[in-house]
């Protein structure tokens, strides 16, 4: 069974979590061009690598950030969101 380390609840089985998508910065919708907005809404960095992602612990309602290797499915780090974080994708 796959175990994820929730920053609040500790080691829990994968079944207790939901994937929330990649961690990304949103362009300002008021100033972004249609092309920039479309790129933000639809396009993704689809190639494998170590990515920052949102994950959610269903049982306790905790959202957190995980750094995961999407080629080997290894969670390298999990931590609570800090508003100073910059997306790196």
């Amino acid at each position, binding site marked *: 069974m796959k175990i994820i380390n929730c920053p609040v609840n500790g080691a829990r089985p994968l079944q207790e979590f939901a994937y929330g998508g990649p961690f990304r910065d949103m362009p300002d919708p008021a100033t972004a061009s249609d092309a920039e907005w479309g*790129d933000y809404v639809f*396009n993704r960095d*689809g190639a*494998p690598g170590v990515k920052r992602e949102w994950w959610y612990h269903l049982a306790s309602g905790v959202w957190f950030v995980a750094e995961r290797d999407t080629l080997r499915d290894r969670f390298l780090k999990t931590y609570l969101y800090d508003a100073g974080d910059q997306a790196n994708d």
Partner: protein
Amino acid sequence: MPLGLLRFAMSKKHPEPRMFREPDALKAAYDVVIIGAGGHGLACAYYLARDYGITNVAVLEQGYIGGGNTGRNTTIVRSNYLTPEGVRFYDESVRLYKDLSEDFDLNLFYSERGHFTFAHTDSALSTMRWRAEVNKHMGIESEVVDRDTIQQACPELDLDCGGHLPVMGALYHAPGAVARHDAVAWGYGRGADQRGVEIHQKTRVTDIRVEGGKVVGVETDKGFVRTGKVVSAVAGFTPRITEMVGLRTPITIQPLQACVTEPLKPWLDTILVSATLHVYVSQSSRGELVMGSALDPYELHSTRSTLDFTESLSGHLLDMFPFLSEIKVNRQWAGMADMTPDFAPVMGRTPIDGFYLDSGWGTWGFKATPVCGKTMSYTVANDREHELIEPFGLSRFENYRLVGEKGAASVGH
């Protein structure tokens, strides 16, 4: 064909030549390089050679022929999609499939079974009515049927699914079929090979060289090859290839798993799909139940299998067929599905001159193999999109013109 088999009994040596040559070295240049010897890449090569006389073509495959999603799918072929552009496209594919065994002189075990998609809720039933009307309007055999009709077609089914999710009706598509997936790749591969196309297995494309916005060649682990036209037909590897040319796309990769049971006497002659229960099942000509479920819930570039999958699939299958409780699962596997936000493919030319995409095939691309070969070869030969694929261009995400196939493609192949 069956009489021809006698030769195998009479002759001491294997009387058939091998299906493909094994070209020893890459040439310095080709008119077209196709990345990926799955069904799509090989079909494109076949029609380029057969219909356009373009034979100076190399198909480069990092593994072996058909070893990608082509050899991993659950082989369902149908055309009862939701959007007119989808229905038109897939119906052409079904039409091509019907004649393919004859064209190849190779038995593809193409077998029309009838395809039921169950509705367990009112809202599902209303989507099915919508699909049926679109389908009929486009001349496709497709209708909403009631519980009795389903029970007649499959007396073994518990229509109430254990009581908690009764089947209310179904969308029925008589031409729904299954086929032998490897043979589709082999047939296209042999036909392309006989017409002069080179298929290089165990040859990986490591980079694509672009100069002044134009493709000039590909780097491989066996050296550089010059070419002005590259077709990417790599399904689950698409983001790695588009990254080589700096193209952004919405394609993300999620595993899709499948499994088969031990062989049983024939009892199930239709294809049954329940999106609500996350089950689809058919019985192969060998007697195995071929089954699949929903996508794995997050991005992953791997073909690993999980116990979660077999556990939840078995549970739901038993809701439908309690009598299968003693049956064993024989094999399970996974493929990497190249998913798009609108559940429609990404095909055609790209902003890079000479770089063509045949991608975004997710969980639904096996049925499209012949029509992809036809339309991609046209597009490459004429440097202009075939009209059937015009709605599927990459630019639709810039222009906010998505296709909206979700209701028909998300789970139910």
